[in-house]
């Protein structure tokens, strides 16, 4: 750093902490989205009524207003969906020329791009995430995923040397509420590319983008039954997991539920991939570009309200720069704009559900009770809806619940270290192993740290980046199997001897 730059940095740090400026509201128009009053289950290419007639209301978490009545799938409905998927698998889809399969997936990718604004708005309305994220991250990545796997459909034999890949059959897929459309893409794209058919259960609180996706399938003229969408709470998921004619289960969600699924499937021979929780360390060395690192810390934990399994929820700061980093972080946090998900200036949107808000609140209270020091920037929250102020805890011991448990909210716990060994020791000291971040200017140190971190994804001088070509998945209790890349095909093929 030159003298001038140092001086500038000193002056900036001395300046009074800025708070979020008053911007005029800049809401994205809602009227591009037509939400129906009620939705059925998407089975065999059309919407059908749930056998039980049971429905529930899905809401806009930012306004606490009902959006639509959604079907609760029961045993009979799941069975019907699995049969539709089996029928489509046996009668056409698996035997279709792979190059034709590819073209369906390309169509879906293009349709998602064309209707991206509609999807982005709907995703923000139903999930509470800022429109900037749905527009710039979720929807483009979902389309990219379909485009990426479309290209694999007729090249599978090049992905598995000396083997003849064939589809597994009917895949049951269960996805979470934090990235509803993106997780749908992560699940459906590789499954279809490999020639499987799918029954997908969206999360209870965020079914609408999956239901809109059914219209994309109609436009793409995908054969009926290749993709079936069954909505509902955990009961529908449990029916799907235990259905005897499902050949493979892919689950993204909590470690607790993941373990229960693994137990249910024990001895059945069904294929399983799990993408579970995390408690990632984001490690800042003293030579890191600090302003960039602070942006990375903020992006690591406050992106998508911290509803991210790979969120950088434990900040490990080298002791010599601790004061500086915390000061800079607090300044930055004060400028975060919390509020209307549809406002283009919003950084942090609504918490996805009342239930999740209660869970975050309880864990934050445990942090206070256990003796950590809490900081929350001054922040005006809307009166209705579910909100949580971006929070940082300092003076955190490794044993505290806020340093051990996945909070899945905008809550950061800060720890310090003196040596790289200590950083590794603390970073790996968790049953999870999904992701980690390293910030340093030294390339050799990046690679040395990356080698020793027990995590499936390591970001260096960046955080929370995703790409369809980059395999993603966990070590240890964060699950097994990869999504993305060539490796993401493996869960969806049976490898016969060539």
């Amino acid at each position: 750093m030159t003298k001038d730059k140092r001086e500038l940095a000193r002056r900036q740090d001395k300046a009074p902490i800025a708070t979020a400026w008053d911007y005029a509201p800049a809401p994205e128009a809602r009227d591009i989205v037509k939400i129906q009053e009620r939705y059925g289950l998407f089975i065999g290419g059309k919407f059908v009524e749930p056998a039980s007639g049971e429905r529930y209301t899905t809401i806009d978490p930012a306004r606490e207003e009902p959006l639509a009545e959604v079907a609760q799938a029961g045993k009979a409905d799941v069975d019907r969906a699995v049969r539709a998927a089996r029928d489509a698998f046996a009668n056409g889809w698996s035997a279709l020329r792979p190059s034709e399969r590819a073209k369906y997936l390309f169509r879906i990718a293009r349709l998602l791009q064309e209707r991206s604004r509609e999807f982005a708005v709907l995703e923000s309305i139903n999930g509470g995430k800022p429109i900037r994220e749905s527009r710039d991250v979720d929807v483009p990545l979902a389309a990219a995923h379909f485009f990426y796997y479309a290209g694999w459909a007729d090249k599978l034999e090049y992905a598995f040397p000396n083997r003849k890949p064939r589809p597994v059959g009917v895949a049951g897929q269960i996805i979470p509420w934090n990235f509803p459309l993106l997780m749908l893409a992560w699940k459906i794209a590789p499954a279809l590319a490999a020639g499987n058919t799918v029954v997908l259960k969206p999360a209870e609180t965020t079914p609408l983008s999956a239901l809109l996706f059914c219209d994309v399938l109609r436009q793409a003229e995908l054969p009926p039954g290749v993709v079936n969408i069954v909505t509902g709470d955990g009961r529908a998921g449990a029916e799907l997991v235990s259905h005897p004619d499902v050949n493979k289960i892919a689950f993204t969600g909590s470690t607790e539920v993941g373990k229960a699924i693994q137990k249910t499937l024990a001895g059945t021979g069904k294929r399983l991939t799990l993408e579970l929780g995390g408690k990632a360390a984001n490690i800042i060395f003293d030579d890191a570009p600090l302003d960039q690192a602070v942006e990375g810390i903020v992006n690591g934990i406050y992106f998508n309200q911290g509803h991210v399994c790979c969120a950088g929820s434990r900040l490990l700061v080298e002791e010599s720069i601790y004061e500086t980093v915390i000061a800079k972080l607090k300044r930055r946090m004060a400028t975060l704009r919390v509020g209307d998900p549809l406002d283009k200036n919003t950084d942090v949107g609504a918490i996805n559900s009342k239930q999740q808000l209660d869970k975050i609140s309880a864990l934050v209270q445990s942090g206070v009770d256990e003796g950590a020091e809490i900081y929350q920037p001054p922040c005006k929250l809307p009166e209705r809806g579910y909100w949580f102020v971006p929070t940082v805890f300092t003076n955190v011991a490794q044993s505290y619940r806020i340093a051990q448990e996945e909070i899945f909210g905008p809550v950061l716990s800060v720890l310090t270290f003196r040596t790289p060994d200590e950083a590794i020791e603390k970073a790996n000291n968790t049953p999870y192993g999904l992701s980690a971040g390293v910030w340093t200017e030294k390339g050799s140190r990046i690679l040395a740290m990356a080698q020793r971190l027990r995590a499936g994804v390591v970001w260096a001088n960046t955080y929370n980046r995703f790409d369809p070509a980059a395999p993603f998945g966990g070590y240890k209790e964060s699950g097994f199997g990869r999504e993305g890349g060539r490796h993401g095909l493996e869960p969806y093929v049976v490898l016969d001897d060539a």
Partner: protein
Amino acid sequence: MTERLPVQKTYKLFIGGAFPRSESGRTYLALGANVACASRKDLRDAIRIARQAGGGWSGMTAYNRGQVLYRIAEMMEMRQAELAALCSGPDEVAAAIDRMVWYAGWSDKLAQVIGSANPVAGPYFNFTVPEPTGVTGILAPLPPLLGLVSRLAPVIVGGNTAVVIASESHPLVAIELAECLATADVPPGVVNILTGLRSELAPVLASHMDVAALDLTGADGDGAELERLGAENVKRIVRGRADSQSPYDIAAFLELKTVWHPIGM
């Protein structure tokens, strides 16, 4: 001159590079010999030692690990007759030796075949490398030598350490193999072999929180229950074939790590 009385072998456990008796002092009779009957505590000790050995083994260069595996094959070649007497015969021994050599050659090719460089849309060098899962529990299947080698070699060539429960009915050849391992520069604790009662040991192995992966190819009727126990810490569970030979068997015990390294001036 009177006929010489042969010196008989005492079959013991193989833990941490040493040959201890069971801490319980128990033995059981198998194929006419008294065999150590490992206790649950022996098993827990072996798991702890395997975990400690993990860092050194996975930290060796791939080239080095390959040479150690090749050295195992050399030691097996020297003991062909002894091994053959304790399994189905010379054919099984020959197949087991050749299999070990085959896997030895994989150590420094895995990252190239299983890993990848990923063309992401951004200024990052993005790559995926295979890494060992950790301590792996193996229920050795029959045939007693070839089955064991077929499941053990892919586990250790990738950098994992192993805790093996030998075939209960045919344990002797497993301990004979341990003597090859002990003289093959396999670092202590990388492979641990226990003889004893499956019904006692397997549930402890399956439920132990320091075991990261399980090879249940040799499981009998208790497979489902062992899988259930293994779910408690999300173990990677493999039920393969006793006679297979494949890099996909190695990959089953590897994690994949994706690294985003920045590109910039």
